[in-house]
């Protein structure tokens, strides 16, 4: 279902896609099918979904180590994503990138990023580029609460504010940088307050409310497109899983499991289901049907990934320098 046809359905399907994709990763990772690190986005689906709802395919995003959600919301191909996570030849990066380095520039995904804060200057440069090319594109730059302490955050937003670049800095405040709670990594509650330092607008919203995200980001996107420059939108949310699959007991070293339970009650998907029911006449049956459809897409992606070949060894030696593109 496309955004234009039926936005509510798109919201629902996109959040579910992310959730079910990630839940599948838990299983796949535990079974040793996915090498490397898996940083899951479960609980934060409304942010990527609401934000990307406001974009055109030609618009850009930059993403993070926790990037599956952004990629799916911007229209990434589930098969190529899953194959990449498996390290297969058919993956987005021919098996050379993995979870932290998926990109698809044909739909504006300028890359996940293994460096915390690493995508922020890149987003800024993409926005500069679209300004210079007068292409009317905007860029959404996703990053976490802890990334807002990197120098790259400060330098980039200052740069963008001087040149009034069309970029929206979307902070996914899930309250932790690995194990360090926000209260221990910064002396403020609302990261959006940092907008003051750049003379731009900053807004705090409930990041588990897909409609609120869409509205706030949508306004910022409209501003950016009309040449009024960057904004910071802070989305308060929470990650349900450990920092990565392998973080013992979902992070019990640094947080109370009860906190997780409390946040599960604020599940962005359950919340949106309630809304769909009460405002748009959705029923449990429609939910079930949608869920089954999406689950099938995920199973297909796993099957695609599983049955895809490993990259040939010489692939390891290719693409150090640009060879003309592979797609």
């Amino acid at each position: 279902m496309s955004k234009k046809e039926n936005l509510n359905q798109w919201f629902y399907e996109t959040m579910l896609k992310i959730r079910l994709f990630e839940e599948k990763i838990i299983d796949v990772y535990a079974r040793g099918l996915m090498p490397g690190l898996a940083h899951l986005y479960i609980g934060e689906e409304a942010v990527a979904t609401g934000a990307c709802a406001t974009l055109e395919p030609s618009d850009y995003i930059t993403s993070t180590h926790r990037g599956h959600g952004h990629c799916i919301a911007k229209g990434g191909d589930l098969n190529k994503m899953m194959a990449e996570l498996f390290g297969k030849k058919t993956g987005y990066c021919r098996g050379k990138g993995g979870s932290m380095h998926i990109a698809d520039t044909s739909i504006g995904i300028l890359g996940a990023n293994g460096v915390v804060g690493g995508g922020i200057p890149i987003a800024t440069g993409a926005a500069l580029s679209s300004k210079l090319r007068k292409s009317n594109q905007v860029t959404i730059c996703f990053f976490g609460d802890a990334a807002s302490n990197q120098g790259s955050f400060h330098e980039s937003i200052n740069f963008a504010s001087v040149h009034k670049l069309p970029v929206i800095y979307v902070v996914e405040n899930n309250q932790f940088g690995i194990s360090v709670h926000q209260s221990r990594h910064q002396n403020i509650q609302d990261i959006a307050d940092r907008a003051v330092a750049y003379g731009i607008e900053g807004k705090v919203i409930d990041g588990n409310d897909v409609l609120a995200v869409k509205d706030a980001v949508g306004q910022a996107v409209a501003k950016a497109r009309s040449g009024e420059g960057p904004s910071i939108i802070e989305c308060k949310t929470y990650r349900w899983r450990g920092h990565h699959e392998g973080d013992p007991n979902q992070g019990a070293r640094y947080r109370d499991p009860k906190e997780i339970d409390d946040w599960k009650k604020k599940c962005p998907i359950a919340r949106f289901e309630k809304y769909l029911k009460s405002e748009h006449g959705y029923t449990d049956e429609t939910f079930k049907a949608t869920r089954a459809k999406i689950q099938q897409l995920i199973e297909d992606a796993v099957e695609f990934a599983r049955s895809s070949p490993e990259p040939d060894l010489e692939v390891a030696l290719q693409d150090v320098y640009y060879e003309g593109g592979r797609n």
Partner: protein
Amino acid sequence: MAQMKLVEALNSALREEMERDERVFVLGEDVGLYGGIFGVTQGLYKQFGPERVIDTPISEAAIAGAAVGAAVTGMRPVAEIMFIDFITIAMDQLVNQAAKMCYMFGGNVSVPMVIRVPAGTGRSAAAQHSQSLEAWLMHIPGLKVVCPSTPYDAKGLLKSAIRDDNPVVFIENKITYNLSGEVPDEDYTIPIGKADIKREGQDVTLLATGNMVHYSLKAADELQQEGISCEVIDPRTLRPIDYETIINSVVKTSRLAIVQEACRTAGPGCEFAATVQERAFDYLDAPIIQIAGMDVPIPFNPKLEKTVVPSVEQIVREVKALF
């Protein structure tokens, strides 16, 4: 003597130095409550409290710089940068400040700090979490660079690094964290700047650091079967380099193969090869070879990842070709 893992040896070095000298403290991302992403600082937060085991914001430049500022004012910080790849963000503080202050300020300022950096491949962590950037650090006057390969060396060298009056970059090869070995119960140090002959031999010298020491030792076993006797040297310190030990070995064996994970071009092995050929030219019976990481970023897929760094088989093959 106790049997322990390398990660535990590092942990006990930190604990003992913090007990011995209250100027020593630890800072870095997730080194406190979490105990370090690789567990090196496990338990220290509980023992020494949040003032001496500081969980920092994600701010590598500030971490390194805070260490510099603390070091020049009487403390002995041990900072962890979570992956050597992120030292890229801290290079100004490390290279322009820490390494140069003593010199720029005419010899009047010392900067006794350690930066610990996990490095290397083997965890399918892809191009931004798997580099071996020791060559950069070796190039900088004012820095010392250490890279242990065994629990024994790790503990003794980390203590020396902490007691040194200069900035030391302490490189921990991630894949060696779980290697076990004997470690004395009593306090000991290993001097910075002393290589170690890990195996004596006659026919060829293998020079290797980190996990490549262990690969080289395995290769040496296999080569012994074929009648080739390998001397395996671990320089342990990459700046300053103990050329005396290395040259003596090459004078004896007349052949040198350098084994490293780092990329070949302008990598650490080039320093060794360039200097040894200059100092031992007349003793060499064959060109010095480098069995090195390929000149590519580290790929994610584990098979590809294995392909781009040396293997035991490759070492055996290439060393045999020297004869």
